[in-house]
């Protein structure tokens, strides 16, 4: 059987290059086609065999490290989970995630996301910390289920690329970070929802979401950020009104 190929149309941009090569531009590569290859395998083939300068992030190639998100034929995808067979014999257009500045080729600048993640205080907040010698905090399976889904976020940022609000309002805190804030607010071990309230009530936080739901559509881990944000709106409103009656109240 003659070896089949598939064509990749890859976005190139490199600020260091001599002017003519800087881009942005698209470059075509013909890559051997294998029905069990993912898009990431094809990119690795290019880097090894055709063009060592092609630049992208990857590591685990099993859908859990969150490094290899890119636009594949216009849709945000983990390239380690996007199979060539779903595009063949058509060509595949690969671009960096939209709504992010580009560092080089398929690598986007993460600074803004990292700052937003930190801003929502995604960690357990409580004053009455138990000694580890006293054993674990009790949490029933039902209590775990209150937030477990929202803890599955791998920070791959596909939801930021899909979110129409991110495109028009870059200050929006965004689906992943808000879902993580909500994950901690719903954790029975946490006492921090009041501390997160100010951030959550900002115009750019939960109220910035117009509930288009694209984030939930593209999430590769079924986190449902849109659902988290809707719940968070209700929780934040309750907490906000509670703050008038119990200024220093806990839960």
């Amino acid at each position: 059987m003659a070896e089949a190929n598939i064509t990749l149309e890859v976005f190139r941009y490199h600020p260091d290059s001599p002017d003519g090569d800087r881009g942005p531009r698209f470059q075509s590569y013909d890559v051997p086609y294998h029905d069990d290859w993912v898009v990431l395998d094809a990119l690795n083939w290019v880097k090894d065999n055709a063009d060592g300068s092609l630049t992208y992030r990857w590591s685990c190639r099993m859908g859990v490290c969150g490094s290899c998100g890119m636009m594949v034929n216009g849709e945000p995808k983990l390239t380690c989970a996007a199979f060539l067979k779903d595009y063949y014999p058509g060509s595949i257009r690969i671009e960096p995630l939209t709504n992010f500045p580009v560092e080089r080729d398929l690598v986007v600048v993460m600074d803004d996301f990292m700052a937003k993640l930190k801003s929502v205080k995604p960690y357990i907040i409580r004053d009455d910390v138990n000694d580890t010698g006293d054993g674990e905090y009790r949490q029933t399976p039902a209590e775990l289920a209150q937030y477990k889904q929202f803890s599955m976020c791998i920070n791959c940022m596909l939801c930021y690329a899909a979110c129409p609000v991110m495109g028009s309002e870059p200050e929006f805190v965004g689906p992943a970070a808000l879902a993580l804030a909500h994950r901690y607010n719903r954790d029975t071990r946490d006492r921090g929802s009041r501390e997160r309230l100010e951030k959550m009530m900002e115009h750019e936080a939960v109220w910035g979401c117009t509930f288009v739901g694209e984030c939930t559509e593209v999430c590769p881990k079924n986190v449902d950020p849109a659902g988290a944000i809707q719940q968070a709106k209700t929780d934040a409103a309750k907490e906000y009104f509670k703050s008038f009656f119990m200024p220093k109240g806990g839960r």
Partner: protein
Amino acid sequence: MKDLGARGADPGVSLMSMVVQHDVIIVGGGGAGLRAAIAIAEQDPNLSVAAVSKVYPMRSHTVAAEGGAAAVIKPNDSIEDHIYDTISGSDWLADQDAVELFVNEAPREMIQLEHWGCPWSREADGSVAVRPFGGMKIERTWYAADKTGFHMLHALFQTTLKYDNIVRYDEHFVTKLLVDDGRCCGAAALELRSGRMRAILGKSVIVCTGGCGRIFPFTTNGAIKNGDGMAMAYRAGAALKDMEFLQYHPTGLPGTGILITEASRGEGGIMVNKHGDRYLQDYDLGKPLDINDPNHPQKRTMELGPRDKLSQCFVKEMQKGNTIETKYGHVVYLDLRHLGEKKIDKKIPFVRELATNYAGVDPVHEPIPVRPVLHYVMGGIDTDINGATSIAGLFAAGECACVSLNGANRLGSNSLTELLVFGARAGSAAAHFSADHPQINTAALEAQAKDEQQRIDREFISKSGGRQRIVDIRVEMHHAMEDGAGIFRDEKLLTRTRDKLAELQQRYRDLGLDDHTLSYNTELIAALELGFMLDVAETIAHSALKRTESRGSHQRLDHPNRDDKSFLKHSLATFRKDGPPAIGYKDVTITKWPPGARTYGADSGLTAAATQRT
């Protein structure tokens, strides 16, 4: 149009402005590094911690660990049993003082992580749930469904965001440890974004860079696991200990090497050959119970035997012609069908996702094809129980280190706990060291970083005419390691591997890159990683060649027996500038558990334990 954030190197930035100083420098942002950072931040809020990582911390390979983390928490378990399982699992090569300390500190560390928000799976009463793993007498593996490493890593990373004295250097690739007058005081790190060298100076350094599975062709390890920190510590003069001991996990997906967790067997999955036989019963791992028997799966028996033995059984089955040939080599089957959809979705949903996506097999309806896959390196940078190396100011923890807890074969689910216990200890020890040794020679260290920048420019960026491609050397290294340093070894195969690696080292000097630019040059990073891997590969081949016995994961066909008289010792590989590593030895620390027969099967561990405890 794309928003193009032009972030190339600014020619106005001089090297001098790329010097930063902190109290403790942590290289590596996985579980061990993050745990160390928190330990320092909590111990002394006045200390400044630099957390340097070549990837964003949440990409670190701790993220891929699935099944769980061991610690004694339930009333039916005991510290003694965890110690015995670990020592017998190690084939008596683990240092027993380290094991005892580890097992005693493990529960507190796991509870600490629970307090930091890790979403452990729970019992109905709200206490943490545990499951059995291979080589365990009693179930003691804490888990967060089958994404335990993911949840641990994210809980640790998110917790570090609390501390203002932890300063992150994300996407900084450390190329060299800076050692002045016998003391490690920092690291030279390429900032990926700009391609410029940053001298990150401190009063102590902790290396937490993980393992080196990518030396092998077929591995569960992610692309970033290249033995960087091991090689850098080795080049700086620290010994690499017990490098001949590499763990093959018995259940990887063919082709990709993606891990199917041992938890799938802990929950009752069985291994069968092409005849449908539970072949493990033919290899001194006990007798199978029926899958419907309430006592299935039995601890330390059959499918819950240790990883080294299960992987060795696969090779023997293949030699008997009992395996199934596929385009990605021979396989056996991991059959989970009897667990049912409900249990699979509740306890091991990621297994279903991975098998369905990457093997085209839904484990609810079909058995999963699996084969042994390189998973973990027991060896690493020689440290004491505080993570201290032989170089003053240099500490190490996690998979890159060898305390030694894991000996000749690591007990499944000890490694996640290890990075907590020894990450915290190394962090604490480094913090004390920094407080006690405040003076460093900044000028000398800056000069070293500048030299390192010039070396990289000379050998890679500005170099032209190199004839070797990265991919060719890497692929030949892969074959050499699999052929000679795989599950079974002998002198002839290992000699060939050793010689091939020497040839590849020569050819590496003739490497040529396509990319001669500075900013985000991932080809340069791959070239530097390849150099690290070749050094580490040589320590593996030389250590394995010299160990003329079989113990745990190191099986010599030409020396099939364990030889306690000659080899109840740790190997120590030390760097020589112009030649292969020198191999020395030091004694194993034996305290209360004298070497005994390593037996598995029903009751074997129990009786062995009883007789050993004298």
